[in-house]
């Protein structure tokens, strides 16, 4: 009986891994379909634009890494290790930019700051100036700023969870041993948060690499732009998929580096922390409090408050806003939330299953499956769509009666599938970084006491993983609500989301009208952010 249930579980996991890996495998399989047309397109691109794409993508990734690591870590350390005015509010306010899609941040800033925007026009008029007052917003540096502001919450959220669990009492111990504050932060707190920081940065970089919205609007030539060009302009899906494999290699290197960093450190201690008087954050006053407060306010101001104000301005001055079908806003919001919620629960469930399997029965196959599933996040949404549509199209053509093509697009199945391919990796990162902090000795003790398998996961791991799981649910939910390429192509009839409406209007260059669904998206995205932020604190 025990054997058969274990076998069943393995089968479920195998099917799950296969379903999640399908688009990535399709992309890899593209090399087997090598033909002259795709070869000539790749050769032509390699001799003209590819080196530029690679250089731009690498520069962008380097800048975004520096940005999200510093912004995310500093703010996470500040709110968990110190006490200062408004700390409680800032603790959740720092998550607010999570509700803002990067492309909306890009639209908002560009509209306001560009040459023809109100700020520069106003300054030119006021001082009788001519020409450019500020540097161009729409370039690699501007894009790096936008991504940093939109993506630092990944690092913040995961690092804060890691730090709040055990940093304080270890910091206290270090203080008692005479270590000064800077040393306590650098030698105790940050190494503790390192897997979480690495995981958050990996997520931010994968999101950056897969982005199309910001880079196409800013006219910067990233590698993903090349993939889209091969697919949409050259109409060659094989060449696009082949280019995507190069992107995958970069991501494999990223993930491997991150795992190597993790494996060198021993993050778990045998003791599970309890909150007590000894783990109170350090109270700051005067200039120190003001400094830390400013460090925490800036990301919220630049990543949330200002873009929202700019959008409000666009909305108030926008033309044709009253023509929008207002009554459908509720419907779009509900669709966004429900698609996000449904996917979040499924993704977190799948991630927990996979991570638990890797923890309990680590073997080569499990590691490979996890690796391939993790790649999904870095694959641009449109490539996932191609990776899903190609094999499904083949099944449909071979067995026309199966109707699989219909089920893929006429119901939410295909869409949720595509979401899972992309976002189980997000949940997995969070769950794995949570697992890294659960000491292996707890598993051994539980086994000695006769608990193993799923029961071990339920009774020992689950209570310890609640926070990372909650964080994972939040990340996936908000990510799905913001997702564009897959939603655009795979959603069933009459199922528009807020992200789709914002994108459609912005694509039609109606920024004033796009501001409304964008703001609604932010508002709806705030609900889970606040809800789960409270949950995190309570736990």
């Amino acid at each position: 009986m025990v054997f058969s249930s274990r076998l069943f579980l393995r089968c479920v996991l195998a099917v799950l891994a296969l379903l999640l890996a399908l688009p990535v495998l399709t992309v890899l399989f593209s090399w087997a379909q090598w033909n002259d047309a795709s070869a000539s397109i790749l050769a032509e691109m390699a001799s003209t634009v590819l080196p530029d794409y690679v250089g731009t993508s690498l520069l962008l990734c380097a800048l975004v890494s520096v940005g999200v690591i510093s912004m995310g870590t500093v703010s996470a350390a500040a709110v968990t290790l110190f006490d200062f005015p408004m700390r409680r509010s800032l603790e959740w306010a720092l998550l607010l930019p999570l509700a803002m899609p990067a492309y909306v941040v890009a639209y908002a800033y560009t509209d306001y700051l560009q040459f023809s925007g109100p700020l520069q026009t106003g300054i030119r008029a006021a001082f009788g100036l001519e020409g450019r007052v500020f540097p161009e917003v729409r370039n690699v540096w501007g894009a790096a700023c936008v991504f940093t502001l939109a993506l630092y919450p990944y690092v913040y959220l995961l690092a804060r969870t890691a730090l709040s669990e055990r940093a304080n009492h270890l910091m206290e111990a270090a203080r008692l041993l005479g270590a000064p504050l800077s040393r306590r932060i650098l030698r105790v707190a940050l190494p503790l948060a390192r897997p979480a920081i690495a995981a958050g940065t990996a997520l931010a970089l994968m999101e950056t690499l897969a982005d199309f919205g910001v880079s196409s609007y800013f006219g910067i030539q990233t590698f993903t732009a090349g993939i889209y060009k091969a697919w949409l302009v050259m109409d060659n899906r094989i060449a696009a998929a082949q280019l995507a494999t190069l992107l995958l290699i970069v991501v494999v290197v990223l993930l491997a580096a991150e795992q190597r960093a993790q494996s060198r450190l021993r993050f778990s201690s045998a003791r599970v922390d309890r909150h007590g008087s000894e783990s109170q954050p350090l109270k700051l006053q005067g200039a120190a409090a003001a400094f830390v407060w400013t460090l925490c306010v800036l990301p919220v101001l630049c990543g949330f408050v200002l873009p929202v104000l700019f959008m409000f301005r666009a909305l108030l001055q926008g033309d044709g806003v009253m023509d929008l079908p207002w009554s459908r806003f509720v419907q779009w919001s509900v669709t966004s939330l429900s698609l996000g919620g449904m996917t979040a629960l499924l993704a977190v469930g799948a991630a927990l299953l996979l991570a638990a399997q890797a923890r309990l029965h680590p073997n080569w196959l499990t590691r490979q499956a996890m690796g391939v599933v993790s790649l999904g996040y870095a694959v641009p949404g449109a490539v996932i769509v191609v990776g899903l549509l190609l094999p499904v199209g083949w099944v449909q053509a071979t067995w026309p009666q199966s109707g699989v093509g219909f089920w893929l697009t006429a119901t939410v199945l295909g869409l949720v599938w595509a979401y899972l391919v992309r976002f189980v990796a997000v949940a997995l990162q969070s769950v794995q970084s949570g697992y890294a902090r659960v000491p292996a000795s707890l598993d051994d003790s539980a086994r000695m006491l006769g608990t193993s398998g799923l029961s071990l996961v339920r009774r020992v791991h689950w209570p310890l993983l609640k926070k990372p799981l909650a964080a994972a649910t939040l990340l996936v939910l908000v990510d799905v609500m913001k997702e564009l390429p897959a939603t655009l192509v795979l959603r069933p009839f009459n199922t528009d989301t807020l992200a789709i409406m914002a994108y459609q209007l912005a694509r039609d260059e109606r920024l004033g009208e796009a501001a409304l669904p964008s703001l609604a998206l932010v508002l709806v995205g705030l609900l889970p952010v606040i809800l789960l932020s409270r949950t995190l604190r309570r736990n």
Partner: protein
Amino acid sequence: MRSTLTVLSLAISAVSAGLFSASALADEQVINLYSARHYPTDEALYSDFTKATGIKINRVDSDDAGIIARLKAEGTASPADVILLVDAARLWKGEVDGMFLPIKSKTLETAIPSQLRSKPTDDGTAWFGLSTRARVVVYDKLKVKREDVDTYEELADPKNKGKLCIRSGSHPYNLSLFGAMTEHLGPAATEVWLKGMVDNMARAPKGGDTDQIKAVASGECGIAVTNTYYLARLMRSTNPAEKAVAERVGVVFPNQQSWGTHVNVAGGAVARYSKNQANAVKFLEYLVSPEAQNHFANGNNEWPVVKGMKLDNPALKAMTGGNFKSELVPISAVGMNQIKVQQMLDRVGFK
């Protein structure tokens, strides 16, 4: 945490039931529409059709490439009846890939000029143009002389150095224009022309057409390429700042003395595996009715395709007096040039 999850799962199950049932498509009096049009004003177009015929429209808006990818994967199981795309080269590609069901309709053939629909075969016509937008040049009335931008060729003339603003060369609007130019000038001269434009740019290509117009109005560039649709919208805006932008720029319909101004064609077709063919044809025929064409022209600032349509749009009228000479390059040629053009753009560094 538990209560959060309970609330979420309740909401999800309630709504997912709705999502699934929304796709339980009724057999009668319905058309399933895949549309690359994404204009809020189209809502009225669709609801008018439903009011007039009782036929309900199920709709998915996406971009052209997404629609074509979706159709390919769905194959014979596709629920699509009507497909609306906004670029002629893509319509041609859809035809070549066998996505469309050729149809015979006297109404459509009479209403739409032959160069704005696909070449008829014995089975019928594969797609029909329903509206057009001209690709024009706007210029800074204070700093640029109109006669310096009379033709597309002059965009690459050294006299316009440092003045040009244009959106990404890979955008379908530009790819189609450059594809048509390849037909007029030949590939070698077109590549020289593209290189000349790169040399003349005031800034690297970025943003949409409205951004280019605003860049001219603010003095960032002297000339820009845009679709009439975006300019007309600014001209008709109730926002004084947007109106001022439109007033600052002049507009030229290029090449009126030679082959005419390039137009982007938006059009429609019946899907290859449509299960509601009669309704689908009815819908396409409705789109060339005076009401629908009036909607394209006055509601959405596009040029109607039906000959003899009275144009009530003040912005479109103001631009040309209501009429202009448009280019007659075969759309199939423009479509076929697309890859060639993209490779030229890559070679000359046109982003």
